[in-house]
């Protein structure tokens, strides 16, 4: 495939998945700077793998690209200072319970970025996109019981990661 063909394909893919990526990456990052960074990585991933995004497995690839982009953005952030910046997550001085909750939400997002691929996808599908289990099972190419298992394992992994992040 030559450059112009790749470009044409990329434009189609970009249009098709723009809303999906924006929604998922925003929910995964909750931080404008992190979101912009993850979006750049996702676009780069789409450009690199654009041929794969035109086939029947495009849906699976786009999830993988989004989750990889999110992980990379978080890793870069963690590499910078390891701390959450309240200005960046838009937190105004509020009662302590709200601050605690916002910080916990940020930690959950960070923990999602460290989940294995399939668990990450299961969490995104179940909670961020609010899909039911039959839909998740179809997308993950597994049974409904398998889908429930992935979600359950992911929740357990998140719990462990939150303890280690505490």
């Amino acid at each position, binding site marked *: 495939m030559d*450059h112009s063909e790749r*470009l044409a394909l*990329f*434009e189609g893919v*970009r249009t098709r998945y*723009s809303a999906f*990526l*924006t*929604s998922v*990456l*925003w*929910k995964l990052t*909750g931080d*404008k700077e992190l*979101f*912009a*960074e993850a*979006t*750049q990585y996702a*676009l*780069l991933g789409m*450009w*690199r793998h654009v041929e794969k995004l035109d086939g029947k497995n495009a849906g699976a690839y786009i999830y*993988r690209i989004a989750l*990889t982009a999110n992980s*990379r953005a978080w*890793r*870069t952030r963690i*590499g*910078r200072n390891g701390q959450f910046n309240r200005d960046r997550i838009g937190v105004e001085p509020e009662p302590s319970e709200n601050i605690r*909750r916002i910080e*916990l*939400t940020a930690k*959950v*997002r960070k923990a999602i970025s460290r989940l294995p691929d399939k668990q990450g996808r299961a*969490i995104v599908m*179940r*909670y*961020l*996109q*609010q899909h039911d289990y039959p839909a998740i099972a179809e997308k993950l190419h597994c049974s409904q019981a398998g889908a429930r298992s992935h979600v359950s394992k992911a*929740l*357990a992994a*998140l*719990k462990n990661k*939150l*303890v280690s992040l505490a």
Partner: protein
Amino acid sequence: MRDNIEDILQNIGAEAVPDDVQTIARETSNNFSRSLTQTGPSRQPILLETLMKSRISKLSAAAVILIGILVLTIFFVETNKGVVLAGVLERVEQVRAFMYKTTVAGNVITVTVSTEYGMKMEMDTTDPNTGESIIQQTFFRPDEKLVITIMPGQKKYTQMEYDDAFFARLRKENNDPREMIKQIMSSKYTELGRSVIGSKEVEGFQAADPTVFNGFAQETNTILWVDVETWLPVRTEIEYMSNDQVMASLVIDDYQWDIPVVASDFEPIIPEDFTSLTRDAIKMPSFDEEAALEGLKIIAEIFGQYPKNLNLMDLIQMFFDLRERGIKGNKGLMDAGLTLKEEMNQMKSEHIQKAMEIFGTFQSLGMFYMTLVEEQKEPIYYGESVGPEDADRVLMRWKISDNEYRIIFGDLSVGNVTAEELAALEEPKP
């Protein structure tokens, strides 16, 4: 805690995307798209400044030196000249000596290159086992066919013997940054537009084809930033990837062009009280078919199977993963592998020598495959499905003439066949 997490996840899922975030998404996406079509230069670099942490940080210091060498040996692709980068190439061609710094997995390597006297590298690393700082100076001595590394702090040195082909390649490719520019030019590069690095206004170029380094890594992302006033490189960013994972990332910057050098700058001085890290000079195998067969044989002896692919980065990773296997148990290792693993962990001179010689066979295999790719001999490798027990199946083949192929079978026997015979051999067996 679990209910709490589910509650938080539900809340995240219910969040709407704010308007200003929608705007960020739209602008980021449009900028990226524009940078690809070159209808208007982007003001932002496509790849962000901070590169990923590398799995290579686990490698031993000696290996990082070899990585450094290998990184420098990849810039080889013949090219169709582009328009804008041709000016950069012309300017760089006039330089006789230069220096730059490369950062690989947090290790800073300073490289000095003279078109007249040769090349040397100085590397400041931290031993991953002891945390000890190690300074290594490596001198490339083509006349003696030696690569000599000196570790002043440890009063140690190593000597590796390479053949003429290695140095011919080194002379051709490494002493000259033109090869990197040619490589980017050959891949229908993307202009990234202008940006600022330090106090310099720069223009960015990205190799658009991620498979341009096929044979070295599955995918490579290369970005070159050049000074818009002098048209000399200011910074290069390279990521090597395999199976969607970043295997190594490096930044080359702090270029100093047209520096004064003398011959003695490139002559190693080994004080009398320094001792060799290995018992004898390590003789590195060639990058030919015989060495590649030896590499496949040794890998099969260690792992009981052939490597899944022959990309050089993956082979290097495979070798150094051996030391980490203790964490996951020794599953998959043959007796030879268990012995080698133990020896690699002992660090006695004879063990280091043996390990480095075995590493040389991995390296030769990868370099041989890379050379076939480079020479457009269309190598195909079936290591994922063919093992040592598949005596009559094709493990690897490449073109040697219009209608003739060279074949390595699963039992490592070799032969030449016609295209028709090859088709019959590669037909799926019931």
